[in-house]
């Protein structure tokens, strides 16, 4: 693996040597098989030996094999299977005792699994939600067989329509059943207490009472039933509970629980809610008008990435500060903190494979990764202070180290006029011929104009004559007279010598039916034979297309074809209403014979 990684990283360096000069390529493994998100990455000194490890809540390929992975350097130190997909991972100190080894917390489904020394230590489950009392009552009645199934169904549907508290899964499933299945279902489930369980959607940590880096921290959970919970680090009891108007998707925490803290939750309804200590409900609200894809706090500014391919900066009171447009969709975001230089910046992984680093609006650096980066994490790894860990959509792992000499300067990214300004305009060239013609026009413009006008008048005259002639002899396939608005078109099918001729006759008037029409075929009797050269047309209902079929036999043996004229006549009138000329195809049947 080492050989492969070095050659790969060489390729990457050559590609964008200048932009990457701030970074050392420590490791690249495209086949690391890590599929995860930024929220499932954490760095921690798990053994208290100063060697920082990477904790990964891995979804596994296709989200099928959830694993807890602990990496030391480029190698996997430990792998534990997980019962369900991990939503978030965090490392936190549970108590003050020495040695100070942080615990790993993995949020998955309704539980938080806590590991100490890489061993399972505790499982915290979210408390059951209170069921709807009416629903509870109904099932109790069912248990004692005091209610029949149809009534039960009706009552439950009534609750679903109106009640604030949603139904349990059991009731919802029951409502889907056919009549025949109800009995068995009720008998199987009636003795069970109805349950409503929620799941964890996001997790973060909050310092308990000290701001130090190695202080005891509480876990903060966001749940599917629109609540935020703060857990006690030792007893795992719920210290505080806050409700939100929507389901939290990303969480950002600052402050200390016992002093003052601020929780910022980006929610599924596209809003960001800011809560403070002592507030049970959101204090400020930011409406994004798009979905947030990441939430990072840089000093006092909240940076939000939205699905509209942009980063927005907000104050901690929700006032909009700035917006930066990205060249591609944002996949993930995280904080870059270089303590030695006091730098805090935002990293954003984009769908085009770039990782962009911004301080406020200013672009500091672009890293071009070989694949779209889906998770980012920056911090101390191994014994190196400034390490950037990235995983890609294809499951690759990239580790880069920030050079100790590297200084981020604003304006190294895109600045000045756009590149396109230097490009030449693509003006179409003109040929010598064009120039010659121009000169000719200049000399003889008047004559050209006159000739043209004369020809134009002649053309118009001829067109008008032809039109009048067509109208006079009813040659057109459309008749627009007030009494008989008709449309005709004909189709010839077959190879010969027998053809099928289908006339589609349509009455285009809106309401009046047409009666008393006749169709007559005119043809050369030496070449063709028709069973009926003349027949009556039935009553034509407005709007419908009537197919009138007739067979045509070609008599010629020499492969000659001729025209057949179709005339539509009104009874008692010799002038046709309309006519069609059908060019018959050459009979191929004879040619073959």
């Amino acid at each position, binding site marked *: 693996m080492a050989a492969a990684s070095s050659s790969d990283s060489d390729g990457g360096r050559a590609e964008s040597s200048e932009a990457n000069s701030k970074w050392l390529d420590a490791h690249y493994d495209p086949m690391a098989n890590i599929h995860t*998100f930024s929220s499932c990455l954490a760095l921690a000194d798990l053994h208290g030996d100063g060697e920082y490890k990477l904790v990964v809540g891995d979804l596994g390929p296709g989200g*099928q*094999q*959830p694993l807890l992975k602990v990496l030391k350097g480029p190698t996997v130190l430990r792998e534990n*299977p997980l*019962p*369900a997909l991990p939503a978030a991972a965090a490392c936190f100190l549970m108590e003050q005792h020495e040695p100070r080894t942080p615990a790993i917390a993995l949020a998955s*489904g309704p539980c938080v*699994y806590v590991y100490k020394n890489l061993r*399972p230590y*505790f*499982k915290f*489950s979210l408390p059951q939600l209170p069921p709807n009392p009416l629903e509870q009552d109904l099932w109790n009645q069912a248990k004692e067989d005091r209610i029949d199934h149809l009534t039960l169904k009706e009552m439950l549907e009534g609750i*679903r329509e109106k009640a604030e508290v*949603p139904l349990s*899964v059991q009731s*919802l499933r029951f409502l*889907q059943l056919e009549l025949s299945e109800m009995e068995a279902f009720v008998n199987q*489930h009636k*003795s*069970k207490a109805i349950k409503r*369980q*929620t*799941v964890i*959607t*996001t997790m973060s940590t909050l310092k308990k009472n000290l701001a130090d880096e190695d202080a005891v921290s509480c876990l903060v959970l966001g749940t*599917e039933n629109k609540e935020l919970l703060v857990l006690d680090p030792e007893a795992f009891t719920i210290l505080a509970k806050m409700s939100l108007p929507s*389901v939290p*998707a990303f969480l950002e925490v600052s402050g200390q629980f016992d002093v003052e803290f601020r929780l910022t939750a980006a929610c599924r309804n596209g809003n960001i809610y800011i809560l403070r200590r002592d507030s049970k409900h959101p204090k400020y609200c930011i*409406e994004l*008008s798009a*979905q*947030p894809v990441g939430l990072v706090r840089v000093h006092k500014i909240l940076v939000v990435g939205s*699905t509209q391919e942009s980063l927005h900066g907000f104050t901690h009171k929700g006032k909009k500060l700035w*917006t930066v*447009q990205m060249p591609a*969709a944002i*996949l993930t975001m995280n904080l870059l903190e270089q303590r030695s230089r006091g730098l805090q910046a935002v990293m954003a992984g984009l*769908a085009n494979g770039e990782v962009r680093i911004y301080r406020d609006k200013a672009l500091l650096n672009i890293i071009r990764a070989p694949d779209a980066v889906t998770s980012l994490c920056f911090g101390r790894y191994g014994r190196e202070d400034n390490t950037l860990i990235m995983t890609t959509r294809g499951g690759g792992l990239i580790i880069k180290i920030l050079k100790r000499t590297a200084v981020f300067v604003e304006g190294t990214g895109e600045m000045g*006029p*756009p590149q*396109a*300004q*230097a*490009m*030449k*305009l*693509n*003006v*179409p*060239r*003109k040929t010598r011929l*064009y*120039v010659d013609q121009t000169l000719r*026009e*200049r000399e003889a*413009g*008047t004559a050209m*104009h006159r000739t*043209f006008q004369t020809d134009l008048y002649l053309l118009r005259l001829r067109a008008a004559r032809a039109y009048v002639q067509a109208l006079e002899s009813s040659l057109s396939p459309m008749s627009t007279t007030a009494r008989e608005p008709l449309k005709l078109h004909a189709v010839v099918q077959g190879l010969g010598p027998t053809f099928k001729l289908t006339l589609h006759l349509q009455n285009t008037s809106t309401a009046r039916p047409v009666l008393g029409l006749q169709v007559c075929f005119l043809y050369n009797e030496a070449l063709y034979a028709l069973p009926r050269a003349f027949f009556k047309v039935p009553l034509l209902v407005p709007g419908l297309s009537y197919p009138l079929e007739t067979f045509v036999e070609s008599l010629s043996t020499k492969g000659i074809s001729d025209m057949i004229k179709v005339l539509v006549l009104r009874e008692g009138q010799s002038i046709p209403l309309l006519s069609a000329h059908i060019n018959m195809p050459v009979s191929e049947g004879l040619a073959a014979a």
Partner: protein
Amino acid sequence: MRTRPGLPTSPPRTHGRTYKIQFPAESAESQKSRQKKAPEFPILEKQNWLIHLYYVQKDYEACKAVIKEQLQETQGLCEYAIYVQALIFRLEGNIQESLELFQTCAILSPQCADNLKQVARSLFLLGKHKAATEVYNEAARLNKKDWEICHNLGVCYIYLKQFNKAQDQLHSALQLNRHDLTYIMLGKIHLLEGNLDKAIEIYKKAVEFSPENTELLTTLGLLYLQLGIYQKAFEHLGNALTYDPTNYKAILAAGSMMQTHGDFDVALTKYRVAACAVPESPPLWNNIGMCFFGKKKYVAAISCLKRANYLAPFDWKILYNLGLVHLTMQQYASAFHFLSAAINFQPKMGELYMLLAVALTNLEDIENAKRAYMEAVRLDKCNPLVNLNYAVLMYNQGEKKGALAQYQEMEKKINFLKDNSSLEFDPEMIEMAQKLGAALQVGEALVWTKPVKDPKAKPRSSSTSKPVTCPQPLGSNQALGRAMSSAAAYRKLPAGTGGTQLTKPPSLPLEPEPTVVASPAEASEEIREK
């Protein structure tokens, strides 16, 4: 195989997995007791977070896979999975399918305003605005404080042409929460009603609220441009360009302003950026063409204009410019075709008939030229050049009376313009008018106070005076050509751009500046060079 605790289909595997971890809570005892009892139900919302995450990352394939799995597991009960599936359908353009799924969601949880909002949105996208407003109103009953409902209701009312209701809804949306989009929509209503001042008012507020929104800045700039407040227009367009130097609309508008001031080279460099971003834009190529025209590169100008015409064959402004350039090139037969095509698309503009008349005069079709002039005089209300050119033609035909009448008409228009605007008159026009005045013996009636003070006027009039030899046949072809091309410069001032929509960048620089006017002799040199 993924583990699914409590799923009826695969209980043994589930237990095997959970055993491995051996958490204190998951004791073997509790598992045994569970086996005997009825199977547990899966938690419906178990993977909602994952669905949402894939959705916002726009990884729709992965998202659909999780949704499918989740729906199988919950037998179609997971509302959020259906919801996101419907959103994805909508993004893929299957609006009808998305509507049906959202309706399913609304059945699963009828108290949720969000589902109704999405149903309404899909209806809206299907063009059923009436039905959409009904559903939105229902949603508004469930959630009274949602700006999105108000905003979308407002947009629906716009499409239903109920502007008052739309304004009410949009204003209440602004009260709930301010969003750029709402401002844009409100501005649009005012524009649809033709109320520019109110629209500017709204956009001003919007720019105050979000000063970096380039769309707002550009629109405001364009509105100022329409009203002729050039200073402010340029300011806002410039701001838009500092935030987004590749903003196509702003580039076009700012470029057109530079062109009117004769900064053709600066305008061209700006257009290069736009040409990279939107290489097939007819107004852009039109403007580039007129830049070259201003720089007296006529062949290039014709090339660019012809490309613009190819891209937008029904745009009369491009045809107008083509006619103008061909007149300058003395290609009168071609000019006639372009101008008559332009008249077919825009039969209500006096200047077009005047240009056509000039072309016809040069094609020695005096009769038709006169008829064109008559039409031009009938349609035009404020351009003195129409009358001047007509007067010159009549004078040359020996109809002194008619010429005098037109001359007086022209004087009226000039006096009106002098009173009402600070516009400078083209020195060539003045010169021609003075000559005609002398020839008609009306003399000094007109006082060209403003233009004469213009320092630029003198050198130019001296340089271009050579072809016309007064008092002899007044208004030779060349003089006419010049007077005519400067005519276009006037058009933008009082005529106003009635037809131009706001959304579309204006192809304003139709009008070449007076400086552009070149004598045909130079033009032919240009050709020889190439």
